[in-house]
Every structure is written in structure tokens, then in C-alpha cells.
């Protein structure tokens, strides 16, 4: 029983950055922008978060640095895809290659070649008084770190903004019928650019979660496809914040099971298969789903007639 509780706690812990990244992706994709730079943004966030925290000794500075750097990368991506009308998937690859080089290069610039890997304390657990004493749920849900709680709070906020406000209507319309939005006197490109910026902030913090909360150090393999999983979660969650939350938890569980099996060992099943589990899950789930509520203009560059 205790094992299962630990497993679930770990699952919730691992789901946070995926949910956060997927939420950013939802906001951007609702306006018709595929955030293919997400892997590069995650990596930048992980790097900036680590560097900010290590140099200042303050977690908050680390997360702030990650947020800003994630936003900057998203702005570069947004500028090239929206204003210079370049292809989104291709641009995403370019950003990923660039940021891989950039982060490794600047890790070297800032830290030189350390004799032993630089480590920091990971973000501590924040037990919510009272609630954390509830059996099972208390440990699983209310003994997490602060970023996890904030992420849960963001889910209804994003949901409310997208479905219940005028701004949300504009966001969704940009993805469904940009011409109509333009006729209504709203600048489609600006909306898309802003949405990508917000998505970048989310992605940056999500990336920093891996370096600051999960391992307490930085290396270039720290993300290894998690950005793309967040991208997939946005698809599977039907571009809905609640869907992102549910699928985020599902992938958190699959990651936690992999970690657990590797730690326990002796199951007879090779650990590599468990590492591959989340990725296989994306493939199977995308294939199984019949109906997707894809924003009509997702991935299509909006060219303003003049």
C-alpha cells in the first residue's frame, strides 16, 4: 500500500511540468500556432533555471530566469513563424538545434568545466497544513512542491479565460477563422504572438522544473523529449486545459511506474521498455482516438491581405 502511495505521489510530481507545458501549448495552439519550439523552450528553461538558481542561490530567481528565457525563445520562434511566415515545424527544429548548442555553450561559458557535476538543493516539499493529514490523498496530493499547486490553480484559470471571456473568444477565433477576427478589427498576428509568448513562459518554467525540482542539476539530456510529450498531451487532451490536466497525470503515472520498476528491479521486464512507455502511449493513444477537435487553422500561417 505504501508503495502505491509513493508511486502516486511521484506520478503527481512528474506530471506537473507536463501539465504546465501542455497548458502553454493549449493557449498557443488555440490561436492556430503549433508550438514546435517546445522542446527547445523546455531545454532553455532547464538551463536558465539552473543557472539563475545556482548563481543567485534563490529558487525564485531561477524560475524567473527560466520564465523570461522561455519567453525570449518563444518570441524568436513567434517572430519567424508569424511575422516572417516561416514554416512552424521547420522553425521548431531550427530552434531546437540552436538552443541545444546555445545552452551547452553557455553552460561552459558560465561554469567552465567543473570537476564534479554542479548540484543544487531541489525545491522542498510544501505540506499544506490540515489537508496533508488526510490519509492517502494527503500525501499524494497535498505534500507536493509549490509549483505543482500553482499549476493546479492555473488549470481552471486557463479554462475560464479560454471558454468564458471575450479574450478567450478572440483566442479561439484566431485558430478557427482568422479572417473574421481581422475583419472585427483585431490584429490576428499580435494575438498569436502574445499567445506564443505566454506559451513560452509556461514552457520555460516547465523546463526549469526538471533541473530545479527533479534532479537539481543541468545536463543536455535533461529534457529528452518531454517537451514533445507535453506537445502530445495538448493534442490528446483535445486542446482543453482539463484534458491537459488528465493526460498530464496519465503520463506522470507512466513515468513514475518506469522510475519505480527501475528502482525495484527484478520484474524480468527490461527497464528500457518502461522508459519507452510514455512515448509508446502517445503513439497508441493518438492512433486510437477517432475524433479530434483540432483548431481549423492549426499550423497554417496567417497571411494578411493588403
Amino acid at each position, binding site marked *: 500500500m505504501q508503495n502505491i502511495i509513493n508511486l502516486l505521489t511521484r506520478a503527481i510530481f512528474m506530471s506537473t511540468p507536463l501539465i504546465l507545458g501542455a497548458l502553454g501549448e493549449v493557449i498557443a495552439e488555440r490561436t492556430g500556432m503549433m508550438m514546435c519550439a517546445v522542446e527547445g523552450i523546455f531545454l532553455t528553461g532547464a538551463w536558465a533555471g539552473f543557472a539563475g538558481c545556482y548563481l543567485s542561490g534563490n529558487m525564485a530567481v531561477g524560475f524567473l530566469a527560466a520564465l523570461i528565457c522561455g519567453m525570449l525563445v518563444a518570441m*524568436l520562434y513567434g517572430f*519567424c513563424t508569424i511575422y*516572417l*511566415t*516561416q*514554416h512552424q*515545424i*521547420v*522553425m521548431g*527544429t*531550427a*530552434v*531546437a*538545434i*540552436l*538552443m*541545444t*548548442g*546555445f545552452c*551547452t*555553450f553557455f553552460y*561552459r*561559458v558560465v561554469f567552465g568545466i567543473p570537476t564534479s557535476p554542479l548540484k543544487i538543493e531541489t525545491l522542498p516539499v510544501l505540506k499544506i497544513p490540515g489537508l496533508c493529514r488526510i490519509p492517502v490523498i494527503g500525501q499524494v496530493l497535498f505534500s507536493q512542491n509549490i509549483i505543482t499547486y500553482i499549476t493546479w490553480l492555473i488549470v481552471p484559470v486557463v479554462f475560464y479565460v479560454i471558454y468564458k471571456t471575450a479574450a478567450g473568444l478572440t483566442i479561439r477565433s484566431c485558430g478557427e477563422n482568422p479572417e473574421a477576427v481581422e475583419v472585427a478589427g483585431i490584429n490576428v498576428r499580435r494575438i498569436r504572438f502574445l499567445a506564443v509568448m505566454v506559451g513560452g513562459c509556461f514552457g520555460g518554467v516547465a523546463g526549469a522544473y526538471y533541473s530545479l525540482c527533479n534532479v537539481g542539476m543541468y545536463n543536455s539530456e535533461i529534457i*529528452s*523529449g518531454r517537451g*514533445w510529450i507535453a*506537445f*502530445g498531451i495538448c*493534442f490528446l487532451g483535445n486542446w482543453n486545459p482539463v484534458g491537459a490536466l488528465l493526460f498530464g497525470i496519465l503520463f506522470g503515472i507512466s513515468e513514475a511506474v518506469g522510475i519505480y520498476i527501475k528502482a525495484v528491479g527484478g520484474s524480468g521486464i*527490461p527497464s*528500457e*521498455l518502461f*522508459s*519507452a512507455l510514455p*512515448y*509508446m502511449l*502517445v*503513439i497508441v493513444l*493518438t*492512433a*486510437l482516438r*477517432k475524433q479530434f477537435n483540432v483548431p481549423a487553422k492549426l499550423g497554417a500561417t496567417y497571411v494578411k491581405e493588403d
Partner: protein
Amino acid sequence: MSNRRTFTDLLLWTVLAFVLGLVVCFSFLPLMGINPFTAAATMFGGVFADVYTMGNILVKMTPLILTGLAFAFTFKANLYNIGAQGQFYVGCTCAVSVSLALGGRMPGWIVMILAMLASVAGGAVIGFLIGYLKAKFNANEFLVSMMSTYVITYIMQLLLRTVLQESKHEYIKTNKLDKSVWLPKILPGTSVTLGIVISLAAAVIVWFILYKTTLGFRIRVTGQNMDAARLSGINPKKEFMTAFAISGAIAGLAGFVEVNGLQHMLLTGLDSDVGSYGIGIAIMASAHPIGVIFSSLLFGILQVGGTVLSHSTDAPASIIDLMLGFVMLFVLISFYFRRKVELARMKKKTAGEE
């Protein structure tokens, strides 16, 4: 005339983007206490200093041409095969398995042909599966191909750790291949093998398929206008599967030329960038198969140049990714301006005719 003009434009803009990308990248070097001008001189001096290093450009190009072609081929069908890396690994695994099992027991060239066929078939199967999911279940091919890379990487690691592991069971890699199954070297004094010939031939064949056969025509029509394709009796779903299978086969072939040509064994994390570089290469060439050769050349020069730089100065090896990233970025930006200049010129021309 207009064709030649477009070509000159493309060349000029790409060179400009290339230079700008390098300038921006090198402007970071003073942070490491390296003079960017000496670095540039070291890099280009080093790359063209001797035949061996120049040969290395061709060596680096060999798999890149193929992964570039793999992306370009599906791109023509308006599909995205982001999973060339995975198909490359499948090709590697197939080639190394066949070569290890049969190497030394049969004439080398027969084994090599079998290994080549195996790697092509392996890549094609993975490509076909992705195309099948796209055609039958309307799965997002971009997402599926991206994820397949990670799954394949882990499975390859598993195989390397178990059945394929070297006899001493120390490292996660295979035994060295028998010398009889190494692709023969073709240029004395370099490591250039027959692999580059295979890659170049593949580029020509892909060009032929795309532009001179009905299969290629069907694929291109599907990519340009799916409704028009359907109305003229083309089944887009069938073309998805064909395009993906061929794309996967090309990426698988890259595994063969890399394993039997250069590495002579398989180890984890081998050429982990070859897939994403392929995407950049295909885009720089506007997905034209012959153009892919030249943009691979560019990537090859940068890779070898970066290696020279990191060996002879304090610059880290990550300078390679930084250079490639900035060059790709500026090339993409140049596409926008080239198009703009072209449109302006067309406008002027029509205005003049009136």
C-alpha cells in the same frame, strides 16, 4: 531566364545567411576568451588544410544526404517525417545484425548487399507503419514519427545491452564488424568510402522518382492539393503509406552507410543529431533532392570546421550546434526576404508591361 535568376537569388541569399549565421555565432566566442577572427581563420584554414580533413567533409555528408532526402521526400507529399533518426537507428541495427551474423562466413560483398537490403527494409517497415497509422487512423504523423524515434532509441539500447552486446559485456556496443564487410575506401589518404557514392546515387534516384515517374507525380500532387488528387483518381491514403515507406527506407539506408562505412560497429547515442540535421538540410534545399547534396556539403563543412575549432582552441564542441542553429535560423529568415524581393520584382515587371 527567370529560373536562372531564381537560382542565383537562392545562392546569394543562402551565402548571405550562412555568413551572417557564422558572424553571430562567432561573436559569442570572446566570452570564452577566443578571438573570433583567429577562430574563423583556424576553422577554414583547418578544414581545407589537408586531404584527410577535406575527406571528412564527405564522410560527414554521407548519412546527412540520406536523412535530408528522407525528410524532403515526405515533405513533397506535404507530410512530416520527423522520425528519420529512429528509422536511421533501425537501419543501423539491421545492418549491424546482418553484418555480425554473416560477416566472415560469406563473401564480403554479398553480406554487404544483404545488410543494405536489411537496413532499407527495416527503415521502410517503420516508415510504412507511421504512414499506415496516418492513413487508417488519421493519426498525426508528425507526433507519431517524433515519438517513434524515442521508442526505437530505447529498444536499440535494450538490444545493445543484451543480444547484440560485445563479447566482453563491458560496454553498451557491438563487436567490431569483420573487415570483409567494411565498405571499401575510394579516396586514398582519407576515410571516404563507397558510402558517399551510395548517398549521391540515392539523391539522383529520389530526384528521378519524384520528377520523372508517375509515382513521384502522384506524391507531389497529393502534397500540393489533396482534393485535386482525389478527384483525378489518386488515393491519398495510399500515397501517404508509399511516401512514408520510401522515406523510411532512405533513412534506414543511412544506417547502413554509417555502420558499415564509418563506425564498423554500433554503439548507443551514435549520431544522435543526424535526423534533426536532415530536416534542416532538406529545408535549406527547399526539399529538392539535388539541392540536398549541396546543403549537406554546407553542414559537413560546418561540422568538420567545428571539430577543428574545438580541437585547436578552447571552444567547446557545442559550437557546432550553435553554428548550425544560427545558420539555419538565418537561412529561414532569408527565405522571407528572398520571397519579398521576388514579389516586388514581379510587381514592378507587371507594372512596366501595362
